[in-house]
């Protein structure tokens, strides 16, 4: 009985967190903020649902499968968000107004300045097709 209540609460909370992910996806302002919503709250949500299932079916075969599901989720989510975030940033799908500070742009500027200085020193001249 108590176990049933615990797993019901866990599933409910997991569902709410997944709903939060969906709502955030709609409401957040730009691509990078939306990446947070699509990837994050439901990691904990899925974890809760898996724990609830494990409580209901406490057998080794279930628990190992759930462990695999969680570990794959933990391993793949950073890679997926990183790839989308990086592609979005590099193709300039950003809203500058949604960025308070951008230290990556500062680093890119510095690197470009170095490159221009290097080309000037070598006497190559700037590439007309650049930037």
């Amino acid at each position: 009985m108590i176990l049933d209540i615990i797993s019901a609460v866990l599933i409910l909370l997991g569902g709410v967190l997944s709903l939060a992910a969906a709502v955030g996806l709609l409401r957040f302002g730009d691509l990078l903020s939306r990446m947070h919503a699509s990837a994050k709250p439901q990691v904990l949500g899925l974890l809760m649902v898996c724990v609830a299932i494990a409580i209901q079916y406490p057998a080794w075969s279930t628990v190992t499968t759930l462990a695999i599901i969680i570990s794959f989720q933990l391993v793949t989510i950073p890679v997926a968000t990183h790839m989308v975030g990086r592609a979005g940033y590099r193709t300039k799908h950003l809203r500058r107004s949604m960025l308070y500070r951008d230290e990556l742009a500062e680093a890119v500027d510095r690197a470009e300045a170095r490159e221009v200085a290097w080309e000037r020193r070598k006497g190559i001249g700037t590439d007309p097709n650049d930037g």
Partner: protein
Amino acid sequence: MSKGRSFVQQLVLVFFLVVLWVMLWDSVSLMHIITGVILSFLVTRVFYLPPVVLSGRFNIIHAINYGLWFLYSLVIASVEVAWYAFRPRAVGAGSVIACDLRTSSDLLMTLVADTASLIPGSIIVDSDRASGVLYLHVLDSDSEEKVIAAKKLVYHIEELLIKALGSHRDLAALKITPDPLADEYGGAR
């Protein structure tokens, strides 16, 4: 790296692949283990990856400490991001911050990036492997204090991971710069 050590690391990798295979089949039997070993050798030969350089140091107490801290921040930060989604006020501007990590190991850099990605509120945008800099996007960080707090979090993750499985060189680097923010902000913090 010596040949013997990379062979041991290969064996560790194969061992974990076999465990994964047996877990997928839900039961331990000789047949599953044999097919698992064959498949693992095939997979590690066909999809060859550069060997992961382990530091050869592992502190179980600090690892447990890291695991508990990770779960705790996962819960806190998930609730926080969920609240941003549901609250009436729209989410504020974010920031892209640069974190100059003290470690130079690929494995640790990846683990720090993964942890920062999994804890809601920050995602990795880009990384500079040569100089060990991570660029992260932080949600709702539209003031100087929030930017500094986010950087503090990343450096804290790094500190926990170095203590758990960093090399002696990383530990020394940790001792030299216990507070990287102090260098950056002229000791104001």
